[in-house]
């Protein structure tokens, strides 16, 4: 029955059974890969400690190397022969899609803030009176959106088994809810009193999820076992007080209604309990002005109750409840189990104002100490005490991205008061003024940390966020940003042409020609490994690596000679032929790929290609002219002169009597032969040509020297023939 009665409390109470917090040591969770991730605390550094997933290396000479993609880093043991490589699971590395979405959303918020990212007070020009209000309003809205995004993010991973991560994010959310309550509400133009109190209640209740369903159930089930009335148990009164202190009014009313108090034998009790319910129901959440009247009503009711003759136990218990509602500091603190319950109680029932917030905080912590094992409690206390800067390191340890954007918004609001002298105290002789000129603010520092950390994720969708954060940062000039981008961009894990386009567009925008060249070189090598020589050459020429373009053009040329015909590559052939239609290659595509350098370096192959076509059509005269042009080309490497002579000129035009050479052609060839200095490449290629089983060159003279002699002899013969 109790269960049914309190079913609607589910809406406000956190399901603590499904949550774990860091204060519990040695919780065994399961991650995506069903790997046990046991979190302990390292006794030396007090840092969180996890084991290797699945299998542990021996610990004798453990070595570890960071991979550029952090999650792919491996460890190994240099002392044992188990010869395994062990992947490492990092605590603070969230590679989920949900995280990527969350960070992208936060970036959108950050970008959308525009000039409001800074807490600049306009001092010149047209200064509007409302400008500060507008600024605060926009920053507040951004903070609210940040909290909402965090809630969505937690919700999206709620049903995964990343319990540790969810726990950390819940703690982040508690801190953010506290920050929102204290700093990001009251100066909004549309602020209402209820916003503050609702935010406060939300913060306290979401943070620890108490009282749990089980506790409530236990209290009501107990009566069935003991046959005592519900209100006869002290636990019931504690529960009612707790619900009231936490602003859970509807739950407390249901609790009272089901406590059998209304059916009490003494009618007076029933009357007063009814009045109590009415008083609770009429708590002036929406109106500051009505609070005094409401409190008067409570005091009146309390005085009346004090005058009633009822059994002492119930009198005392109900009096305690009245005193809590009347704002009695002692009773509020006495009935609070936690300091934040006292704080909330004081805010709700003493005077609901932030002006007394610090006083409430001190009073609350005096009676109930802060649980330092809960990561969110100390930061919340710092927030109440106006020490927002102290919160950031803890937030950073829970989630860097959240911490960074919170820091920026806090700076934009002007609520970070950092004791820089304390921070830099360890640096002797530091000129603090200089330090402030050069050092970024905490927000900018954290934003940069986020930007850099996103580049070591295996997720290319995070790169635009990273580049965006670096571009928008105001702590450094354009040259510094260019330097950062220049170091990072070559690491972009591109997979598609669109990725490359984006990468090159960033290089163009930031005027990074050297980086673009590096990228083209990488692309060139990549395409080369995919056997796409034309694209590789195109990339190399765009990278300014003309030697490589030349090298591969000559390789194409060599392959065509050895093959004895045009290559089977339609792209190369359409480039040299200029005929895209018959090869079915879009002209625009080809034009975008082929550079001037390529056209120039491929020109020897273009002539050779034409030669093949002419020879195929039996246009011997023209073919011979093309061959002579090639052989006498001043930049033709010696080895290719030999190849052209041996493969084509000698068998096709010298060994046959059908073709006649005129004097000038013969002299051209002889002059070229004069210039040739034989080298290892000449010998190697000539021998390769001779040994090729499919070649008609197997009957060529054995050595290059004797081949040249043979050519000379034949040319002499041809001179005589021509003379005669």
């Amino acid at each position, binding site marked *: 029955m109790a269960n049914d009665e309190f079913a609607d409390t589910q809406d406000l109470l956190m399901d603590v059974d499904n949550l774990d917090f860091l204060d519990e040591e040695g919780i065994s969770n399961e991650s995506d*890969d069903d790997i046990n991730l046991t979190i302990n605390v*390292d006794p*030396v*550094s007090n*840092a*969180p400690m*996890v*084991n*290797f*997933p*699945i*299998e*542990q*290396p*021996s*610990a004798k*000479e*453990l*070595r*570890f*190397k*960071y991979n*550029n*993609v*952090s999650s*792919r880093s491996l*460890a*190994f043991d*240099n002392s*044992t022969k188990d*010869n*395994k*490589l*062990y*992947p490492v699971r*990092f605590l*603070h590395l969230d590679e989920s899609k949900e995280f990527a979405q969350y960070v992208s959303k936060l970036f959108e918020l950050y970008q959308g803030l525009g000039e409001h990212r800074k807490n600049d007070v306009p001092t010149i020009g047209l200064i509007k009176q409302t400008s500060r209000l507008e600024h605060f309003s926009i920053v507040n809205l951004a903070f609210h959106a940040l909290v909402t995004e965090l809630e969505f993010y937690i919700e999206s991973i709620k049903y995964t088994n990343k319990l540790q991560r969810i726990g950390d994010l819940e703690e982040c959310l508690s801190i953010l809810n506290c920050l929102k309550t204290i700093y990001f509400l009251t100066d909004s133009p549309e602020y209402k009193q209820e916003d503050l109190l609702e935010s406060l209640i939300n913060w306290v209740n979401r943070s620890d999820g108490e009282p749990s369903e089980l506790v409530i159930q236990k209290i009501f089930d107990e009566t069935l076992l003991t046959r005592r009335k519900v209100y006869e148990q002290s636990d019931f009164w504690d529960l009612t007080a707790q619900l009231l202190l936490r602003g859970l009014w509807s739950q407390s009313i249901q609790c009272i209604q089901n406590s059998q108090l209304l059916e009490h034998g003494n009618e007076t009790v029933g009357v007063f309990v009814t009045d109590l319910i009415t008083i609770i129901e009429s708590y002036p959440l929406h109106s500051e002005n009505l609070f005094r009247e409401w409190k008067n009503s409570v005091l009146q009711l309390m005085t009346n109750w004090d005058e009633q003759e009822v059994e002492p136990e119930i009198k005392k218990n109900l009096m305690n409840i009245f005193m809590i509602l009347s704002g009695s500091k002692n009773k509020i603190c006495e009935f609070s189990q936690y300091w934040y319950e006292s704080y909330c109680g004081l805010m709700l029932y003493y005077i609901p104002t932030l002006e007394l917030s610090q006083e409430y905080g001190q009073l609350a912590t005096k009676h109930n100490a802060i649980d330092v094992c809960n990561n969110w409690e100390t930061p919340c206390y710092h927030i109440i005490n106006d020490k927002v800067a102290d919160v950031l390191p803890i937030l950073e340890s829970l989630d860097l991205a959240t911490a960074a954007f919170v820091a920026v918004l806090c700076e934009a609001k002007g609520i970070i008061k950092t004791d820089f002298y304390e921070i*830099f105290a360890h*640096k002797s002789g530091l000129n603090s003024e200089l330090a402030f000129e050069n050092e970024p603010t*905490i927000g900018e520092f*954290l934003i940069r940390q986020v930007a850099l*950390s996103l*580049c*070591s994720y295996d997720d290319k969708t995070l790169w635009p966020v990273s580049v965006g954060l670096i571009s928008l940062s105001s702590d*450094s000039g354009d040259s510094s940003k260019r*330097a*950062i981008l*220049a*170091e*990072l961009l070559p*690491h972009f894990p591109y997979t598609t042409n669109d990725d490359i386009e984006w990468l090159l567009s960033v290089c163009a925008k930031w005027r990074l020609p*050297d980086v673009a060249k*590096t990228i083209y*070189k990488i692309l060139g*090598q990549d395409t*080369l*490994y995919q056997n796409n020589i034309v694209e590789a050459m195109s990339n190399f020429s765009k990278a300014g690596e003309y*030697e*490589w373009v*030349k090298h591969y053009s000559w390789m194409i040329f060599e392959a065509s000679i050895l093959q004895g015909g045009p290559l089977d590559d339609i792209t190369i052939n359409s480039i040299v032929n200029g005929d895209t239609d018959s090869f079915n290659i879009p002209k625009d595509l080809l034009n975008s790929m082929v550079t001037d350098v390529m056209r120039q370096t491929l020109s020897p192959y273009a002539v050779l290609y034409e030669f093949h076509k002419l020879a195929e059509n039996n246009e011997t005269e023209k073919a011979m002219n093309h061959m002579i042009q090639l052989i006498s080309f001043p930049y033709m490497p010696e080895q290719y002169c030999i190849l052209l002579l041996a493969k084509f000129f000698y068998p096709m035009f010298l060994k046959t009597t059908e073709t006649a050479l005129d004097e000038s052609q013969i002299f051209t060839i002889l002059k070229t032969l004069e210039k040739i200095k034989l080298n290892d490449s000449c010998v190697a290629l000539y021998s390769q040509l001779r040994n090729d089983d499919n070649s008609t060159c197997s009957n060529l003279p054995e050595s290059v020297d004797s081949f040249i002699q043979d050519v000379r002899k034949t040319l002499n013969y041809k001179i005589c023939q021509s003379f005669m």
Partner: protein
Amino acid sequence: MKPFLTGHSDLVHDISYDFYGRRVATCSSDQHIKVFKLDKETNEWELSESWKAHDSSIVSLDWAAPEFGRIIASVSYDKTIKLWEEDPDALELSGKRWQKLCTLNDATGPLFSVKFAPSHLGLRLAALGNDGKLRLYDALESSDLRSWTLTSEITVLNTPPASHLQSDFCLSWCPSRFSTERLVISAMDQATIYQRNKQGKLVPAGHLKGHTGLIRSIAWAPSVGRWYQLIATGCKDGKLRIFKVTESRNNGTNIINEENDNNANIERDGPPIDSSAIDADGSVANLHVELISEHSDHQGEVWSVSWNLTGTILSSTGDDGKIRLWKASYSNEFRCMSVVQAAR
């Protein structure tokens, strides 16, 4: 991702990832190199190739930058440096996928460390070994990777260590593309930064002082977005040290006087700072090396140090069987942010 067997039949001495972290090469005392590639579907490392690369233990290897193709350099106790190139036309696991480009055998003692220079310096590599010599090689023609030229040979240790004693040598290049060519080497218990002067010679430019045991590992941090450099060392004396290196152009006289004083400690601190580092205008690109952090959390020997891609997180491993991750706070204080523990 699961642990996987490398298949080496002896100790694994070094691993190296390619630029995009999609391949990992391992080397071992079994004289073999193995290359594994990541299967993105299963997220597991798969053996791509394995081959006998040297005639003795292979102790260090490194990938060249991707601009130059898929190239691996390896060094061994057989005193040679070997360069390997992947042949995409050869089948995987055929033993022929990685072709030897060349063997460099100038060293007179076992080699300990090899590292390619950052790509903006061209295709260059440095190797260091037991003969106490740092050697730099360049592929002068990018289209001919079989031809490497010894461009620098520097004595970093006057007396090579006795063969029966433990020794260790490491090197790490300054990865910043906006910095002068610099590298840091550790030889036994000394660590020295070398930089190229105006005459094009590599000269000592600073010492990393304070080590009282063999330096096991040294790593120069990527300095993305930082105006200063960071170098981490892991030492047998149980300390992880982080040094901050800043450059200032001071009047040369002061530096020389300071270094003359330093020369008294040559034996202890390494080679003297070379006066040729001074520029013609009398100023000097003076490196100020400052120990900013020292930690003995490993409670024993520190075996390896390694930075992440952006130089924001440092990892260290040690005798306690733990990987410790270190991160600098806003005030540049390094704190252990998390720990990964191996079985004890």
